[in-house]
């Protein structure tokens, strides 16, 4: 298991109503030299969260205690920019298991799915409804049900389905990355190898 299996996550959510949030904002390049995967959560959105002297910027949502939870809700084209897998690690390490948006950049989406973050794509209208619900009540809960592929705003009962690749869904439900999946095929692979002529 590469990460905790994802079945149903029901939690309050942190709103980031900004479009085109790129991977340099999610994790600035100067933090990419680390050789381990832990500790990246401290540097999530570093330059939006902290001033140069290290003091927290009061206006940034992660520094506002009324917002918390395992779900991040973001404007369209979240994760654009470089292929750094570190961006997904930072989000996971901070404590988020799910990001909801109306559009995700491709590489970031794949990186997320491989390390245990579920990117949920909803319609622009539903995204607005989520932002409105959180604004009305910061403790408002969202329920993300992976087996049913639905996302629900619990305060209003509004719900929408989301799409996910079948293979990736199965991996997420089991906490598998690609190597875990292949490891589960070990006896098939060994049987296949015996038949090889070279």
């Amino acid at each position: 298991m590469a990460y905790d299996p994802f079945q149903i996550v029901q939690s309050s959510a942190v709103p980031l109503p900004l479009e085109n949030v790129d991977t340099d904002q999610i994790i600035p390049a100067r933090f990419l030299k680390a050789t381990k995967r832990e500790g990246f959560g401290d540097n999530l959105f570093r330059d939006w969260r902290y001033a140069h002297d290290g003091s927290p910027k009061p206006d940034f949502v992660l520094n506002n205690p009324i917002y918390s939870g395992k779900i991040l809700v973001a404007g369209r084209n979240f994760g654009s920019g470089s292929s750094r897998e570190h961006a997904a690690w930072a989000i996971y390490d901070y404590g988020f298991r799910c990001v909801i948006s109306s559009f995700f950049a491709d590489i970031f989406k794949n990186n997320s799915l491989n390390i245990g973050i579920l990117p949920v794509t909803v319609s622009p209208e539903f995204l607005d409804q989520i932002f409105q619900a959180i604004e009305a009540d910061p403790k408002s809960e969202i329920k993300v049900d992976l087996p049913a592929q639905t996302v629900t705003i619990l305060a209003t009962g509004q719900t929408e389905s989301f799409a996910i690749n079948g293979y990736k869904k199965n991996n997420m439900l089991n906490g598998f990355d690609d190597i875990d999946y292949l490891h589960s095929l070990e006896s098939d692979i060994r049987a296949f190898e015996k038949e090889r002529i070279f």
Partner: protein
Amino acid sequence: MQATTLFDKVWDAHVVQHIPDGPDVLFIDRHFIHEVTSPVAFLGLESRGIGVMFPQRTFATADHNTPTINQHLPVADALSANQLKALEDNTTKYGISHWGLGHHKNGIVHVIGPENGITLPGMTIVCGDSHTSTHGAFGAIAFGIGTSEVEMVLASQCIMQPKAKKMRITVNGTLGKGVLPKDVILYIIAQISASGATGYFVEYAGEVFENMSMEGRMTVCNMSIEMGARGGMIAPDEKTIAYLAGREYSPKGEAWDQAVAYWNTLKTDEGAIFDKELVYHADQIEPQITYGTNPGLGTGISKSIPVSSAVLDGEASYKKSLEYMGFAENQSILGKQVDYVFIGSCTNGRIEDFRAFASIIKGRKKAQNVTAWIVPGSHIVEKQIKEEGIYDILTDAGFELRQPGCSACLAMNDDKIPAGKYAVSTSNRNFEGRQGPGSRTLLASPLVAAAAAVTGVVTDPRDLL
């Protein structure tokens, strides 16, 4: 029976599992590893607590970081020494074959595989290096992979991969005097640009490739990645079989007969459909040279540097490219000053390349203004250079033979071209700073490199043959 291609036949025979709405799980016959892209992969295995599934299908060499002189001395650069030591430790721990620095079979990974018969037709072959496409010359599906995929193959001998689209590039006719396989691939890349084959696996077909030696085919397949292709293949034929007979890792006896019978079934069937087909003729191909900062910015050596409207690249990036190189539109490439000449690399570091180089320098002298690095692809190639008398031709002309390694191709070791200097290089990439910060690379064949080495300027080798 549906007509299928060489690529389909080899791919389909290796699918352990097809995931609906997902990638194929592809079994890998041969996994080559080297000191730069393997250390983190092995660390990953350790942290998962799993081992290498098939050590006997894994082959290691040291090539990217190694010095090409005084290999008997301890490696001076600490980071390089660390990577070499990590490879030594990891291969010992897991029981993986390792031809390290000083081993008599050591050399560049894509040279040692074929020359020892480790690379065979119909195989799937991967390595953490983009020029793995070289092995496609044998009718293998061979491609480069990233470090996390290196870990994947070590752990499971498989890779998750969506099946690429298929492109066939046909070149008919007979190559003119002084025109080599390197010129063929440089010509093709110039026609379609550095991203012209992105998303495709390429098959090379036609008279030019049928008549080409195995080493020539390796040069062509090697640079498939430089037009964005996932890989490149040439169908195995009697040349392939003759090359492989008797090599150390080639099958023997009954296994050999079985293998040959299988290899003869692999070529593309008549009427098979490709997603894209391109056709060229040998008459269109003269010795080539690049003048820009990607391999697609090349042209015939007798031609001038094109105006930006005539190239596929965007205007702004084209202008930036010419500025970096210190060149301008409409300038003649012939006669341009050359400071360094590098012959070697996984593209052109084999015996035929050195024979070609020697054919021009014989009886001539190295130009005073040129620094030349002559780097064999392996110790086996080095030995052949000496046995065939090429070593004597080199030294008589004032050249020095170095020891095997990737060397100045990517300049991870000390073989770095200084800033602003022009190098005619038989390697595969001319990106800004590739051969050293500020260095200016002109990619070419061994004949063009030899001609530059003796005249000190860019010269048409046909004038010296």
